[in-house]
């Protein structure tokens, strides 16, 4: 039918021309008739009218029409629409001439579906917001994509992981810093989280043999005159206007047997520049610096820069070398910010640091979670914390696993359990609570109705009391489930366990 109309529209187009012209031409004529309305704006596609006129004047119409009608092979199905062709063209030339916003929604979608994920970011970054395109980009680059960890946005995920990748493989004084800074204007609005678990040290090919020559036991500091500073994040972070989370590890992954101490060197310059960076970043909410050999002095430098930070909510300095002085600085930070989560797991905090933390905790109203796993606060620190918990009305989870705690702390904690109504999770695993301490804790638990998690594994507590405490916890969980109006409380224990797991 359409063909008839087309032929009627150009009645004099000859059979010769019909046969000689390629499918492209046919489609162009068809497109001319079918898409006069929708896309008049594309100059490259509209066929010159003179040409069609040439056809129209070419031959007699009657014969031609009969031939078309009798042509069994000719069908419109194999002729792509002009729009298709246009879209194809746009897709092909997108890099040079990116046309997207002017298109109709359906065509836009088609263009996006056909765009190659390998297009340079400079073209696509600010032009394309479509998730499906970025999804393709992500899935093409990385086999495992966890979009939920990036706020459900594929674009954000792409840029965040891209940036992380670049940072991971950045070698100072070898890689061009412009490589990262060029990306900055493209991703400044997308990146909210930076999670870099590796910072490569500068290349040191010349000193390496020397160090090998000198001695096996020689210390690194003497050998290398230029300090092995890592990439300075200052410029990058200052450019990212929505950065909320910064998760850094100054170390090298997968070194295997090539292990060398100076691969894991968080220098003072790194520390100072990082401190200045996080101080300048007012949107930062979560700051993690783990496994980076942060000692007391560096921790103090960092924490000093975080005092009175407007947005910071979580500080994670786990698996470092923070001692009592660093803990004291963290305690000061507690009273000078709105910190909600503090993680000092696997550090060298001892009784003094724990006491200062306890002092800050006693009147704090922001902190929700405190993790002091694998420190050595011992009974003095544990007692101080227990005392603080008697007045604190905010802390919900406390991890004191592996802290050489024993019975005196347990007695105090049992008193706290009877009084405190905000704590929902306590972890006392890997301590020396002892049989009596377990009994006292059980007594304390008998008066508590809010605690949901209480880990006493490997803490020399009698099985009976541990079992009874578990019963009490079960009852508490049931009560909490019934208190919560959420109908999907089915998984409540799991979700309740959620925050505990990463802490452990």
């Amino acid at each position, binding site marked *: 039918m359409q063909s008839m109309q087309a032929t009627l529209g150009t009645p004099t187009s000859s059979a010769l021309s019909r046969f000689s012209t390629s499918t492209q031409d046919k489609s162009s004529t068809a497109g001319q008739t079918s898409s006069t309305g929708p896309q008049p704006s594309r100059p490259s596609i509209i066929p010159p009218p003179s040409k069609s006129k040439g056809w129209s004047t070419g031959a007699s119409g009657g014969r031609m029409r009969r031939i078309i009608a009798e042509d069994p092979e000719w069908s419109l199905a194999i002729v792509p629409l002009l729009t298709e062709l246009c879209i194809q063209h746009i897709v092909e030339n997108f890099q040079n001439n990116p046309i997207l916003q002017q298109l109709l929604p359906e065509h836009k979608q088609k263009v996006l579906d056909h765009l190659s994920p390998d297009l340079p970011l400079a073209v696509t970054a600010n032009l394309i917001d479509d998730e499906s395109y970025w999804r393709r980009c992500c899935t093409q680059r990385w086999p495992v994509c*966890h979009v939920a960890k990036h706020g459900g946005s594929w674009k954000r995920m792409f840029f965040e992981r891209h940036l992380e990748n670049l940072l991971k493989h950045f070698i100072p004084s070898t890689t061009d810093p412009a490589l990262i800074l060029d990306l900055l204007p493209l991703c400044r609005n997308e990146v909210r989280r930076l999670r870099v678990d590796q910072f490569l040290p500068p290349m040191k090919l010349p000193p390496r043999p020397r160090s090998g020559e000198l001695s096996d036991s020689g210390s690194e500091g003497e050998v290398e005159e230029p300090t092995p500073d890592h990439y300075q994040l200052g410029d990058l972070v200052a450019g990212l206007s929505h950065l909320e989370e910064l998760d850094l590890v100054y170390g090298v992954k997968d070194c295997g047997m090539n292990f060398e101490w100076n691969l894991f060197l968080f220098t003072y310059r790194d520390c100072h520049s990082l401190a200045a960076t996080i101080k300048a970043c007012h949107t930062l909410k979560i700051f993690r610096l783990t*496994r980076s050999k942060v000692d007391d002095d560096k921790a103090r430098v960092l924490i000093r820069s975080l005092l009175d930070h407007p947005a910071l909510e979580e500080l994670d300095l786990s698996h470092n070398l923070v001692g009592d002085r660093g803990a004291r600085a963290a305690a000061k930070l507690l009273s000078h910010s709105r910190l909600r989560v503090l993680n000092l797991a696997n550090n060298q905090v001892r009784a003094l640091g724990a006491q200062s933390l306890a002092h800050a905790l006693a009147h704090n109203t922001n902190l929700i979670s405190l993790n002091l796993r694998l420190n050595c606060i011992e009974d003095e620190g544990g007692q101080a914390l227990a005392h603080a918990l008697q007045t604190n009305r905010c802390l919900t989870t406390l991890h004191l696993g592996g802290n050489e705690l024993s019975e005196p702390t347990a007695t105090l904690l049992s008193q706290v359990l009877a009084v405190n109504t905000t704590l929902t999770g306590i972890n006392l*695993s890997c301590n020396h609570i002892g049989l009596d301490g377990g009994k006292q804790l059980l007594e304390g638990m008998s008066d508590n109705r809010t605690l949901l998690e209480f*880990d006493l*594994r*490997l803490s020399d507590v009698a*099985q009976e009391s541990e079992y009874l405490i578990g*019963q009490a916890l079960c009852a508490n969980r049931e009560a909490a489930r019934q208190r919560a109006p959420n109908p999907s409380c089915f998984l409540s224990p799991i979700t309740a366990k959620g925050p505990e*797991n*990463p802490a452990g």
Partner: protein
Amino acid sequence: MNPPGPLGALEKEEEHSSTPILGPSIHSDNPRERIQARRLRIAARLEARRREALGEYLDGKKESEEDQSKSYKQKEESRLKLAKLLLCGTELVTNIQVAADIREIHRRVEEGEIRRQRLEKLENEVKTSQDKFDEITMKWEEGKRKRIPQDLWDMLNTQQVHCAGLIEDKNKLISELQQELKTKDDQYVKDLKKQSDDICLLLERMEEQVKNVMKTFRQELNSIEKAFEAERRELLTSNKKKWERALQAHNAKELEYLLSRIKKVEDYEKQLNKQRVWDCEEYNTIKIKLEQDVQILEQQLQQMKATYQLNQEKLEYNFQVLKKRDEESVVIKSQQKRKISRLHDILNNLRSKYTRQIRQFEEENQSLTSDYIRLVTQFKELQKAMRHFALLDDKRFREIWLMNEEEAKDLISKAFDVDRIIHTQHLGLPWTAPDFWFLRNVGPISQQQQRSATQILEEVLIQTEEEGMEEATSETESYLDLPKQVSMKTTRKILMLLCDESGFLIESKLLSLLCPLEKSECYLLKLDAIFSALGIESEDDLYKLVNFFLKYRVHHSPSSQERTSPMSALDPGEQTDLERQKEGSLVGGEPEEKEVPSSPTLIHPNDVLKILEAFVMGLRKPRDPPAPVKVVKYVRDTSKDSAYWEALATVLPYATQNLWDALYTALEKYHLVLTQRAKLLIENNSLEKQNTELQMLLQQYLDSKINSELHVPPTQVLRAPTK
């Protein structure tokens, strides 16, 4: 089903925690496996116990929630089971972490211990080696002093041995340390291996956990679904049963209804038949009756038709008549219409005229009112003028009167003089001057006017004062002023009393003004103020007041009457006055006044106020009505005037006139005679004079020269006739 998030996180955390632990622990395998085995055992036991407890718990719950549906129960059960499973699973997984933790702690403790030992050992070694070194260096000193080469050789040998020992010690230490380092390295490798084993185990467990959880979740889901299905089936069967039961009941009822309906139908049919028969009969009877009726009605119809015809004719006639009338009435109507229109025109005309007239009249009215106002003002002015002229006329009249009277009196006096002269000189008769009332009259004759109270007062006061000086002379005159009232003195006394007692009626300002004045004047002004306050205006009022006082005296103290009468006897003038007053009071219609014999001196000053009050109360009533009478002007009475003038004219009686006439004629005659005599005398005198003159002239002429010159001069001739 189990969200992979937490597990993934867990995995990561495991990596986290495992990587920094670098140093391998010494007793790696055994304790860990031991611990794990123990933990697993414990966990299994715990789980078993918990299951028991939960079963009990569920049993307890079942009882309480029997009303809940099976599916709900199943759901709850599954939920608890799964929660437990998850809890146990995660515990199982985290157990590895905890184990790693405790291993790390142990390692740290051991490491600390070993480090301490090592340090101690090193220190000891340093000390001993230092001692040895010191010994060796001392021996070097010793060796320097040795002279004997043998000794020196021995010493050197021993020294060498010592040094070798020292070096050997050091080397041993170094090798020990290197050995340790090697073992550490081995341990590091082992640790790495173990950690990877751990991680593998963790992963295994996690996978197992995931599998388990998935399986159980699936199972639970299946069981829940089964429960739901069972419940649904149950529900379905129960509903079906219910439905069938209901259907059966419905069918039974339907049947019942059908039977009853059939019965009813039969009943109704019978009834219908009966009814039909009855109806037929009734119908027939009614039909007959109705036919009869129809016949009657047809008859009636015929009659009616006849009457109708009649009526029609009548009506036609009437119609004709009416038509005609209608025509007439149309004509009349048109006429009336025309008339109406005409009348309308007229009405309109009249209306317009009326309005015009109203306007006109209004204008006129306005002009007239303005005229009226003007006239009133004019009239008022005229009245004023008239009053003025009346006054003027009065004055002029009085003046003319006086003038005329004076003239007349002059004339009369002249006449009397003449008469007296005539009588005394001509007739020689004694002449007495006639005494007539009108001769004493001065000014126009008039009634006594009402004088104001103050005037009277003034008079009274003045007169009484004068009385004091010349009692006798003025007494007669004073009677004229107070014709019918009490005597001057009593009046004065009363007034003085009044003036003294009722000072409160006078304004204080006035009193202060009166201070410097004379006593009488002061009294006068005071009394004036008091009278204005009391409302006493006219003479009558004043007299009434005085009388009232007297009356009061009599009325309230009859006992004092005896005393007053001698008092009144003392004053005869007063007595007479009283007599006259009695007459006056008779005329005034106040009989009580007759008894007034008062002597005002005896009125107690304290009573004055009471009297005044009573008087004022009494005065109010009669005083009101006569007020408008005052408007009427006093009209002069001219009746006596002519008589007066007549009397003046005829002051000389006719007899005297006649006498005078006679005398006049006689005197005329006498006069005539006398005049003749006078003439004659004059003639005589002139003649004598002429005579003398002529004699003189003659003498002159006779003496002059001319006469001598002329015998007859013309002057002599002329003079002669003029003389």
